[in-house]
């Protein structure tokens, strides 16, 4: 719709999309054998959201702001199972669960509740195998006095609460400028790479601040658990790995100059200078909060698993994807 005498362009979409007959690869108990039972069209998922775009076209500049919010829920799986795990299981376990009533691809693990302060703290807490001062304390979610597989719960979701884009443009004389800014907010990232550069799987290189900022009796509010070779518990899949993945990025900035038709060389051509991914503002401490879709297939069948393309079940897990590059380019647009 157009508002204010044509000054503002507004487009709003409100939707509630029910997707039925999703392909589902059921898990049977092991006593039924390993052979995959037939994949069935039986899953149901709902996406509810709003997309909007609001823009203004002035004499020599224009701006458009678009934003979108959605919420995703698994409505039913096959009527019998209420959950199934994600498609990729890493060395420390499977961090994704798809559970009825929750978004697809939710993160699943223990809830990390800080570190044990001392031996008294260990004794007062629920029985946690391998607990010691300086190690991560896990919350007793079901209140049964011991920390075991039943204390795992949903600890985050890769789905953003809000994504937004801002397109700016201006033209003055022979110069033109355009910029696109993109941002996503409220999504979480499961930083699986901490397996390597915090918990030192395979004795890899570690974060620079691991030595200075690990728990010691003098440094109780540290960022990392105590440096301890026999610590088998802190590395367990938990909310310690879940980070905020919100970011704002200047995706594209282009400055162009159109040569006048009377110019000696390339009359009428447009010359431009473009930068991609110029800056990113984020609190995420990994390499790049903009993660590509993971490869959920096998070596022989990349991307596609038995139930088809399951990449939507595995979003927001950072397993060392190559980060985006900042690119500068120069271009000429002309015609002969």
């Amino acid at each position, binding site marked *: 719709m157009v508002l204010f005498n044509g000054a503002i362009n507004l487009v709003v979409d409100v939707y509630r999309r029910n997707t039925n007959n999703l*392909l589902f690869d059921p*898990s*049977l*108990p*092991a*006593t*039924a*054998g*390993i*052979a995959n*039972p*037939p*994949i*069935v*069209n*039986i899953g149901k998922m709902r996406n509810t959201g709003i997309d909007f775009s609001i823009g203004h076209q002035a004499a020599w500049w224009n701006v458009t702001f678009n934003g979108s919010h959605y919420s995703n829920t698994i409505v039913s799986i096959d009527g019998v199972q209420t959950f199934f795990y994600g498609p990729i*299981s*890493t*060395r*420390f*376990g499977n961090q994704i669960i798809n559970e009825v009533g929750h978004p697809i691809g939710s993160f699943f693990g223990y809830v990390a509740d800080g570190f044990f302060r001392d031996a008294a703290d260990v004794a007062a807490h629920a029985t946690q*195998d*391998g607990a010691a001062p300086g190690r991560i304390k896990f919350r007793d979610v079901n209140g049964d006095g011991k920390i*075991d*597989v*039943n204390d*795992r719960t949903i600890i985050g979701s890769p789905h953003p609460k809000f994504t937004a884009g801002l397109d700016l443009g201006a033209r003055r004389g022979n110069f033109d400028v355009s910029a696109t800014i993109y941002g996503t907010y409220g999504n979480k990232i499961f930083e699986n790479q901490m397996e390597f550069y915090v*918990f*030192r*799987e*395979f*004795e890899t290189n570690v974060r620079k601040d691991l030595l200075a900022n690990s728990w010691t009796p003098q440094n109780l509010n540290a960022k990392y658990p105590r440096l301890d*070779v*026999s610590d*088998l*518990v802190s*590395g*367990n*899949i938990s909310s310690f790995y879940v980070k905020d993945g919100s970011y704002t990025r200047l995706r594209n900035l282009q400055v162009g100059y159109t040569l006048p038709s009377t110019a000696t060389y390339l009359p009428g051509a447009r010359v431009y200078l473009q930068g991609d991914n110029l800056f990113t503002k984020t609190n995420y401490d990994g390499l790049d909060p903009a993660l590509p879709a993971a490869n959920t297939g096998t070596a022989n069948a990349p991307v596609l698993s038995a139930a088809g393309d399951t990449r939507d079940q595995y979003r927001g897990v950072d397993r060392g994807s190559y980060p985006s590059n900042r690119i500068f380019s120069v271009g000429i647009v002309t015609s002969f």
Partner: protein
Amino acid sequence: MKIVSKNRLLVGTAVLTLISGGLYGCKDFLSTNAVPQGTLVESTLQTAGGVEGTLVGAYRALDCTNNTSGPGWGCAASNWVFGSVVADDSYKGSTNTDQPPINDLEGYHWGGPQGQIYINQKWVLTYEGVVRANSTLRLLKKVLAASPGAFSTADAHAVEGEAIFLRAHYHFEAYRMWGNIPYYREDEVDAGEIPIIKANETSAEAVTDILKDLDAAIALLPTTPRAKGRASQWTAKAYKGRVQVYAGQYAAAVTTLQDVKTNGPYALEKSYDRVWTGFKQFADGPETIWAYQASSNDGEPNGNNANFGERLNFPYYTHFGCCGFNQPSFNLVNFYKVDAAGLPLALSDPNWNASSANFTAAATAPVDPRLDWTVGREGVPYKDWGLYNSNMVRDAGNGGPYSPKKNAHEQASGSEQIAGGWSPTQQNSVHMHLYRFADLLLLLAEAQVEGGDLSGAMANVNLVRARADSTAQGCGYRPTDASIVIAVGSAYPGCVGDARIAVPTNDPSIKWATYKVSQYTSFPSQAYAREAVRTERRLELAMEGQRFFDLRRWGLAYAAAAINGYIAVEKTRVTYKASADAFVAKHLLFPIPYLQVELSRTGGTDNLKQNTGW
């Protein structure tokens, strides 16, 4: 006018096409109601070839299959994690953070999510074996009903017998791990031929069912196997004796095992190097009762039949390349020391385990020659790969200086996978013994001790010791090539040119050890006899994935004393063991995998009842 009617025709055709397209597209070819397209249904396999193929599949499930292989090695045929590492035979090995599930298992934290991965793997593969055996039986029945001439009577009985035997074996594997297991027969399937969900029975009931199946197999199987490696009537009888000893039915066990020993085709290999070997001509020899028929260079593109389950268990900085797991413990190496009389030091000297030193070839204390068939240690030839050195381990601070040896092939055997897969040098066709004749003799001795026949037990123990005395590791010289890290000749010039891998125990070429293993002259009491048989069992079967199951069936007091005593000492040698839990009553059984308990839920209740304490 003409144009309008043409248009109407076009429009009509288009609408008709759209409607029919829409109706066709609504066909439910992936719904649960119809038999989905592209699935393999049993009717496709209803031929003699299908039956035989399914039966071979049931044998194949003895070791990790492609589907159970990742992520982990809980499915290994040899049970090296559950039987050796979790007991006092070996440490996990490799580096501290590698394969975290084994850390959990070794530390008796079996409820944590890591350890559960491996426990679940073992459950999955064991019951896959049951499913395959039962599928064979169902298919056989269908084929015989449809075309009675497809199998000769002898073949039909043999197929049925082999399948029932396999079913009994897999259930016995489950029984050893979890005790209270569900028992599945071939008719316990739903309309879609998928096994139903059922509750687990008690371990006593499981034993009864296993023995019932074994008796059925005995009645059906031929006395000679249809092919090497297949089950025969004697396999089933020998196995029955094994189950009886495990279940404490000693008198019956003596009868069963005595029959197999006297009348059966089995015998001890004269030379120990032919027991665990990659040489094809010695595979399935007289000592083999039941083994995983590993096979390499057989056309499987990744060599996955070549002991996938063992591929981590090789010394690291060697031709093999990876991965340094399953490292024998200091405790185990000390256990092979003998006293002046040639009997195990552990029986007479309470300080047998005092030394935390690396037991290299320089040590002069006399040892049982089986030490150097079981453990790779410094200064001793490692089969025919040259000398072993403590630097070959991945991380001595984590796993000690020793390496496993039984599962390694000899270079001259040609059993190494040539190409394919992630690590062909670590894949071979050494047949993994699951039950061999020496094991049978010692089970018989155990039953005889419990029945009071001490002299009978001693005779059987002495048979095993006599064979141990026949050969020891020799020079195993090969001309130097890239696969040899340290040539034998560099430390032992006399070895140059001496290619013998096995030599008499007092051979002059042996400069790295004093071997001594003598016969028992008397078992003065039942207590002594019991301990002597148990000691012999460990010496003979170390690193073969049996130890933990033996310790558990000898009772909580015995197992707890052994394990907790082991940890108390070993944590001074490999510091990570300090974080181990104490062995208590609940560790007599592994927990049924939590995932499987959840998946057994119907109508809100779990059909599988968890073991006590988990």
